[in-house]
């Protein structure tokens, strides 16, 4: 996983509600191997017209926003399919932080497991960070201190559970960490299957 400590970057605002993972990356692009990268397909059908031209009016197509790395989205961002490619596309494009009032649950989990910092923040707080210079907002996101600061010095704190924070800071894989608990897993497993023998099918 990509480690995350601090990040300072340009904000892209996409205040629409219910942006689903099909919008973040359409289903027809999911068969690439991970290392081939998905950044060019991010928001594909929102960014491009069917004949491959940039779609006028889509925020990411604003030349001043092309270098954005912090996405401020509307309610229920990343709802829909469980596709992790949505997170990969955001990361590969260059996004490191997504801030929204709430997220699709699976998307939220996927984000933090890949080093994309997903932050839940109420709409009022989001507005207070944005109101000053809505066209070219720069934010600083500090994971150790769990804070976001704008250029006017307004600072807001955000919540993240301590384990996820540690994992993000270290960029540690969850699989390796869980393997340290293998004895405990095996002990539980034996007891669980004895009590529910129909779980094993053969």
């Amino acid at each position, binding site marked *: 996983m990509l480690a995350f400590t601090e990040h300072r970057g340009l904000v892209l605002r996409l205040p629409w509600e219910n942006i*689903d993972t099909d919008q973040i990356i359409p289903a027809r692009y999911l068969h690439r191997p991970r290392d081939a990268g998905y950044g060019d397909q991010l928001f594909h059908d929102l960014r491009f017209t069917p004949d491959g031209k940039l779609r006028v009016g889509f925020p990411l197509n604003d030349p001043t926003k092309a270098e954005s790395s912090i996405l401020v989205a509307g309610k229920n961002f990343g709802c829909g399919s*469980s596709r992790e490619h949505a*997170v990969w596309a955001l990361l590969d494009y260059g996004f490191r932080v997504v801030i929204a009032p709430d997220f*699709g649950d699976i998307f939220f989990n*996927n984000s933090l497991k890949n080093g994309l910092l997903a932050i839940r923040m109420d709409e009022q707080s989001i507005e207070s960070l944005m109101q000053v210079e809505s066209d070219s907002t720069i934010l600083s996101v500090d994971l150790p201190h769990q804070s976001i600061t704008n250029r006017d010095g307004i600072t807001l704190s955000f919540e993240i559970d301590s*384990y996820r924070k540690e994992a993000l800071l270290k960029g540690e894989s969850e*699989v390796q960490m869980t393997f340290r608990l293998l004895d*405990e897993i095996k002990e539980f497993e034996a007891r669980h299957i004895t009590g*529910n023998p129909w779980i094993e099918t*053969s």
Partner: protein
Amino acid sequence: MGKTLFDKIWESHVITERDDGTALLFIDRHLVHDATAQAFDQLKAEGKKVRRPDLTFGMADHYIATHYDPDRDPVHDNMVTTLAENARDQNIMSFGAGDERQGIVHVAGPELGLTLPGTLLVCGDSHTSTHGALGALAFGIGASEVAHVLATQTLWQKRPRSMHIRIDGELGPYVTAKDLILTIIGTIGANGGAGHVIEYSGKVIDELSIESRLTLCNMSIEAGARAGMIAPDETTFAYLNGKPFAPQGELFERAVSAWRELKSDADAQHDKEVTIEARTIAPTVTWGNSPETALPITGHIPALEEIELNKREQYNATIEYMGLEPGEKLTTLIVDRVFIGSCTNSRLEDLREAAKIAKLGKAKVPTFVVPGSQQVRRQAEQEGLHEIFLQAGFEWREPGCSMCVAMNGDSVPAGARCASTSNRNFAGRQGPGSRTHLMSPAMAAAAAITGHLTDVRELEGTKC
């Protein structure tokens, strides 16, 4: 205080808990489909093997062909083959192309008896919520989580809250589980269940078949919920009895005694309560690009003035994308395509409902019927349903996800309006530029034979 059904299943799977309350859960069933190739790559990158191949089952569904197409993109077949290769390398039983047990993972899993009450089941697919219909706790996970389950047979999860949706009364004629769940989503919103597991109960649920319960739980994810579930009852036990992977004989009896305990205690508290009166529900369709845009078929496209101020920009974009006129009646919308299938509505019961309507006319537009599994296909053919469809000019295809997610090459052309029994009407979901209206199988069949969205209750020959 008593425990909810969710509490009971969750707590019986907790191996350990972190200080922050996140639990390491044991996974009883892991279903993997043909769109999880990257998770196997991740497993290899971690230097691990599948820890419990005997509890892991493969299904080809997202990329599998539903008919012979000489121009089919080989990339799609590669994904089906890759699943088979990964399954062979990791010693996993897998039902791929040519297997008589192949089907959509959420259709074939329950009908094979892989889904059992009280179990914790996961799959790298958001519609895993479907399996909760049998009293399992079942939810979708992402690719990293799939890799984690493959490697460890466990999963770290934050405990969701519980929501209880009680459905009182009785469903009217031609009002199905699909109309029920669309109405629920229209009522609570596409994020109304966020962070929650929904338990459905009430008289309507008690009387629903397992197939209808699967449809209902399937779209819990469209309500934003982590999972949907229904306490197992006699209907559940009867459904499971004799299924190939369900326990048999004496073990089945023992299992049923344990499963009878799987219900919310009378004094259990849910974090959220919603009550829906079934009598008020009409056949329901969606008009926009979120399942929450569900309306009774007797309704009209909302006018701008009916939309909250802060949602008007998105509304205008939706109207344009969907090619709609504000205020127009839903029943005047001309369709170009009809799709009957998907993990929501491709079971035998769904095909029977669609066939009843197909008997009344001829398709005016290209109509695909895609059964959910080889077993459904065989049963439908034994009953002669395919003959009815073919007679009505519908196409009868091989099982798979097909046009629901448009990953296998089956898709709705740009700008075409599709009456669809699937679960998502997102922009581009059924193909770039596709315009999807969600509805029940009977309603989709009615649209096929009239050429426009139709209140199935008004159709000649269905008067009730």
